[in-house]
């Protein structure tokens, strides 16, 4: 183990100012990168990130943006049946669009789909 006390460290830094600066900057950038990666993973953003090359095909299946039709309806102004009908049209269009999206309800993970459908298995997993 290298034993350097505080004064020796200060002397060393003073002696090699430029190198110390470079090392300091590298250490800082490593720290910031680790911090950002932690946030990226912990927030769940990593699991939704389709920018990786192996997700190229999936990128085409995602909707680039949901229609910003909600912007057409103003939060201010009078509210009559006419405006309400306008809202309902936008709202119902959205609900219809939503009903077409994947809903995690298909049977792709049941025993039959995974070829684990021997009789005993079916009985157990009921």
């Amino acid at each position: 183990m290298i034993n350097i006390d505080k004064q020796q460290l200060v002397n060393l830094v003073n002696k090699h100012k430029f190198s110390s600066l470079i090392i300091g900057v590298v250490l800082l950038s490593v720290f910031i990168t680790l911090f950002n990666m932690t946030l990226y993973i912990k927030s769940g953003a990593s699991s939704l990130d389709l920018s990786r090359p192996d997700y190229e095909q999936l990128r085409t299946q995602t909707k680039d943006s949901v229609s910003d039709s909600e912007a057409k309806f103003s939060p201010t102004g009078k509210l009559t049946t006419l405006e309400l009908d306008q809202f309902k049209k936008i709202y119902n269009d959205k609900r219809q669009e939503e009903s077409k999206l994947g809903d995690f309800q298909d049977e792709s993970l049941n025993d039959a789909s995974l070829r684990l459908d021997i009789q005993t298995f079916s009985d157990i997993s009921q």
Partner: protein
Amino acid sequence: VKKAELLVLIIISSTLVSPVASATSLDANQLNVVRQNCTMIQKTLHQVQSSDKVARINRGRMYESVIKLLTTLNSRVALNNFSLPVLTDTTLTYENEFGGFKKDYNAYEDLTQSVQTMKCSQSPQKFYDRLNQVRSARNELANKVKLMNSLLNVYDEGLIMLEQQIVSKKINQSPGVPQQ
């Protein structure tokens, strides 16, 4: 009454939603079947995970957009002095459930990932138990989608009430009708 309806809806759904995956003991034959098929199952899981990722992204964008739209109407309702707490309550619950949906998806994603990286042929029992947990987590997601959909049905009822209030306000304000 509407608040109570919302509460009942959430309680019922949360009881339906959480079927904790119970561990199933497999006999030697069953373990063998799992051992033989597990690599193929891991590949299938990867495909399902990919399509679910797309569903999560598209649904997330859609939910955000719906929340924005509902909030817009709610502020317009408040500005026009209509009293309909069901609209704001439902929007708030919807927003909270969306937060739950995101958490549930992360849990599901973590579980799916862990099953895919397991050395399944060495520990088929553990693999099958973990697979059941994945199914359960996916089921929770499906139930969350249903719950959010039913919240919008509650919002629909609020819209009907809003329409009634607009019509009665119009009648009260029309000339010839004495103002209260």
